[in-house]
């Protein structure tokens, strides 16, 4: 512990921090600054200050409860040192037994969503119906309207639960698309060489 715990006093921001703390305890998914501002009827900037205060108090190594930024909001989770004990008592049903096909489908929906099942099938080369149904059931993806062009096919996007489970502050925390598929250029060159031979 590098610094002594800051006492939460009667200072107005401290009072606000206590209310924010209470809201986060009751919530079962991340709350955004706007959610917190609306609930406390207070200013977003003061909410940010209160969250900084709470972040110091609920930090890894300092508390069993840790405040984290997740899925575009703020939420409490268990500290990593409690993980083993948590693992003995609690299941992780959302991510348990995700297949390789499910991971690929999740990646496609995360990067290209909202997208339809035919969009997913086009990239993976395999029908996506059962995988998509499984991911919807787990709550990792959800319906997001219909595609007017593709005969009203249902479109899917990832849920805040997806970001939470994978520990992402937002979808922007995913690796950049350009940084993935390093050998794609090699494939392209080989294919172009074959095409040139054929057309020659």
């Amino acid at each position, binding site marked *: 512990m590098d610094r002594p715990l800051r006492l939460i006093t009667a200072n107005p921001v401290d009072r606000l921090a206590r209310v924010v703390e209470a*809201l986060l305890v009751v*919530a*079962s*998914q991340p709350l*955004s600054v706007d*959610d917190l501002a*609306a*609930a406390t009827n207070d200013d977003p900037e003061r909410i940010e200050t209160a969250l900084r205060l709470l972040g110091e108090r609920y930090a890894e190594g300092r508390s069993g409860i840790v405040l984290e930024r997740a899925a575009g909001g703020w*939420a*409490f*989770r*268990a500290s*990593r040192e*409690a*993980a083993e004990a948590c*693992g003995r008592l*609690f299941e*992780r049903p959302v*991510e348990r037994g*995700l297949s*390789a*096909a499910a*991971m*690929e489908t*999740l*990646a*496609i929906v*995360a*990067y290209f969503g909202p997208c339809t099942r035919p969009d997913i*099938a*086009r*990239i*993976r*080369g*395999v*029908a996506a119906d*059962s995988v998509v149904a499984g991911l919807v059931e787990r709550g990792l993806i959800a319906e997001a309207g219909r595609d007017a062009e593709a005969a009203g096919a249902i479109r899917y996007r990832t*849920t*805040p*639960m997806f970001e*939470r*489970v*994978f*520990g992402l502050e937002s979808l922007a925390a*995913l*690796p950049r698309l350009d940084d*993935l*598929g*390093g*050998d*794609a*250029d090699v*494939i*392209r060159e080989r*294919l*172009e060489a074959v*095409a*040139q031979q*054929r*057309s020659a």
Partner: protein
Amino acid sequence: MIVRELELDLDAFEGPFDLLLTLVLREELELAEVDVAEIVLAFCERLEDRGRLDLDACGEFLVLVAGLLELKARGLFPEEALELSELEPEEAAEELARRLADYRRMKDAAAWLSERLESESERFFRLGPAPLAPAVERQLAPQEPARLGAALRLLATEPPVLSLGHMALRFPPVSQFLERFRAVLRRRRRFDFESEVAGLSRVEAAVAFLAMLELRKAGEVSLEQASTFSPIRVLGTRAPKAKEGDESQWIARSA
């Protein structure tokens, strides 16, 4: 090595390659669910096990898998088959490269997500039903009572009553047609039902038909029809007349 006996263990199918082909051709197995890459891998492993290159088997396998892939591609993208067939080799290579690159990226992204899940396996948090954003009561802007009153008065006026009169079905009484048919039968012994109801509305014709059946039930007429949809001929009999008044209140609606 006999390609058709290649044992497969796929997500969608388990058994010899030959059976897979049969099931696909009989449309008992959805080819879209079959991962063809897995079949190729199984074949390559089998070749590897044997330790020598069997060109006959390779040739046969290539033909079968190419056919399978073509079938699958047509099944997955029926509307694209046409536009893709018109592509020049360079364009086709470009399109294929683009799709392969997309897939390669998504495979990498999936691997990244798997690693991420592994590294995040120590994070435990509360899971609840979504969504849980508290429903915050929205504050209304200040309102003037007079304007509110005017708006309410506008809503409170009763809309004009719509007349549905033109939609009502009018059923003439059956007795009207009983009388009419009896009058006809007094003049001549037989008549054609169709010519008698010609020019009547659909509902009137239906009521006339009920009247005809009523006469038949009472034994006042007998009916003849050569075949389905041919004219119905009504013949008067000399049977006693049914009691008057019984049917005077008889209208189609009560049927």
